């Protein structure tokens, strides 16, 4: 009897020891998952900066692309990105804000709203390259817009629409219900509530979402590749119907060339692209910070 008790206690002790060790080891193993991501990001940045730093100069954005890597720049791509993405933001952000207002304030929790929300979630799941193909078939050839800035801008706008709409919905949901109900109780129409209660409070967060949508659109190469083709464009996009290229597409062109000089050029262009995205994201974070400060003050 005594032996059995002892053995049982042994078993419990061994089990406890094992669990104690596991309790120490497992978190370390799990944290490797986090550090894996961080390490890849760090290695990527390090590699890009060391390869591209020497090639980084103003010519990169003031010169047109050239077969000679020492002279090549991406002026047409930078302008193409500004025009195309800027235009897509002008289309996407108002649409997103309006959709979010309808979804939260008008459609409520009805089945109809569920259907609309589901459609938006589905749109977010469509691969970006498919947007390009449909843009080619529907906008470029179907509507006859040609391989133009406007076709690219519409495609990017629809591509980013679901993301920006979702943040706008979140933004509206942060507005305190009491304020809305108070206004309704005073007899305000929904339009008045939207104008005087919701928009002033939700707009900064909506714009944050808009900026994040823009930075997503800036990084997209696949849909623009399908719409615009892989061209050597040595002129500025001057009209909505101009042919165009964007920074990631110019990058694809340079990365695909085997000469080492083009690799350095690509790395330098990647630095520029990442700096633009960093600036945009910092702006979004700053906006969010300002917003929190203001909300805390009230």
């Amino acid at each position, binding site marked *: 009897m005594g032996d059995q008790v002892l053995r049982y206690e042994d078993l419990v002790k061994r089990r406890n020891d094992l669990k104690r060790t596991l*309790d120490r080891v497992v978190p370390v193993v799990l944290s490797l*998952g986090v550090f894996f991501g961080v390490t890849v990001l760090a290695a990527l940045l390090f590699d890009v900066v060391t390869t591209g730093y020497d090639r980084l100069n103003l010519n990169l954005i003031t010169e047109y692309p050239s077969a000679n890597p020492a002279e090549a720049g991406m002026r047409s791509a930078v302008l193409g990105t500004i025009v195309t993405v800027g235009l897509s933001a002008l289309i996407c952000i108002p649409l997103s804000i309006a959709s979010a207002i309808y979804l939260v304030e008008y459609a409520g929790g009805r089945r109809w709203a569920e259907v609309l929300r589901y459609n938006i*979630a589905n749109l977010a799941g469509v691969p970006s*390259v498919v947007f390009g193909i449909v843009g080619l078939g529907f906008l470029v050839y179907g509507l006859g817009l040609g391989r133009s800035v406007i076709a690219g801008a519409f495609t990017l706008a629809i591509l980013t629409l679901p993301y920006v709409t979702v943040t706008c919905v979140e933004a509206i949901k942060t507005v305190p219900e009491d304020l809305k109900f108070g206004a309704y109780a005073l007899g305000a129409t929904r339009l008045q509530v939207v104008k005087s209660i919701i928009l002033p409070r939700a707009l900064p967060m909506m714009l944050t979402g808009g900026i994040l949508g823009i930075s997503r659109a800036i990084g997209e190469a696949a849909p623009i590749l399908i719409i615009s083709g892989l061209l050597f464009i040595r002129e500025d996009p001057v009209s909505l119907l101009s042919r165009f290229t964007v920074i990631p597409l110019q990058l694809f062109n340079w990365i695909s060339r085997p000469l080492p000089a083009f690799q350095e050029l690509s790395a330098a262009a990647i630095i520029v692209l990442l700096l633009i995205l960093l600036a945009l994201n910092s702006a979004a974070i700053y906006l969010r910070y300002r917003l929190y400060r203001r909300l805390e003050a009230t």
Partner: protein
Amino acid sequence: MGYLSSEQFLRSVKRRRAQDKLFMVVVLAATLVSTLALIVIFVTLSVESVSFFTRVSVIEFLTGTKWTVLFADKHFGVLPLLNATLMTSLIAIAVAGPAGIAAAVYLSEYASQRFRNFMKPVIETLSGVPTVVYGYFALYFVTPNFLRAFWEDLSIHNALAVGLMIGVLTLPIVVSISDDAMKAVPYDLRLAAYSLGSRKIDVVFRVVLPAALSGVVASIVLAFARAMGETMIAAIAGGFRPVLSFNLGESMQTMTSYLAQVATGDAPHGTIEYQSLFAVGLLLLVITATLNFIGLKVIRRWEIRY
């Protein structure tokens, strides 16, 4: 400041109501753009695919093992492309799944609030990096400097590097959805387990993780769908060789990188090459939409539970 007569008041109410109605119509129209876009996507892909399938049999498309649409002797079997897409996506999930779930468990259950607040945006950054940049990194760093250290005769364009980088790209999807799922497990469940004498390890792996399992599974399914649709990494680092192969060290063309290749060349409107874009695109959309449907359904079920 004067008082309104009741007539003036009624008129102003009517005007405001009319404005409200008009505004509703405007915002409703904006909301319908998303639905309209889905319809346009489906119709455009279908119409051109129908023209494609009047020239190529569906059976040949789905079962053929040779894809040589851009050559003189044309074969239209999509299996090589589909196989390459599945291979690269499976590698991606083999990376993003374990690493992402581990990171999510760590951030949700072990990390301090400060570490968590700092790390979550850093991980999110991985999905904000443009995919051409990952393509560059795969082609000029991962393959020559890292993979070739273990695998000397690795082809410069290969499926392995593509899969690895897509894995890094989809890591944040797994982390953020799994983390949400675990954070949604009620705290009482953890307390109850502790009060029964459980150690942390048991609480995490026998209580929290099983309770959050459907969210974790959904994160994997959604990441897989995202991986299948990734284009630029495959186009840059995977090469344009449509071969039906299971050798990860070989260059192979995914569905998406075929689409990219057609776009880099010249495929005039109405040719079979042009129409093949839509057929491949439709197949890709059907697969990813099915996966997304399953993923969203699982997420919704789990949202109802808690």
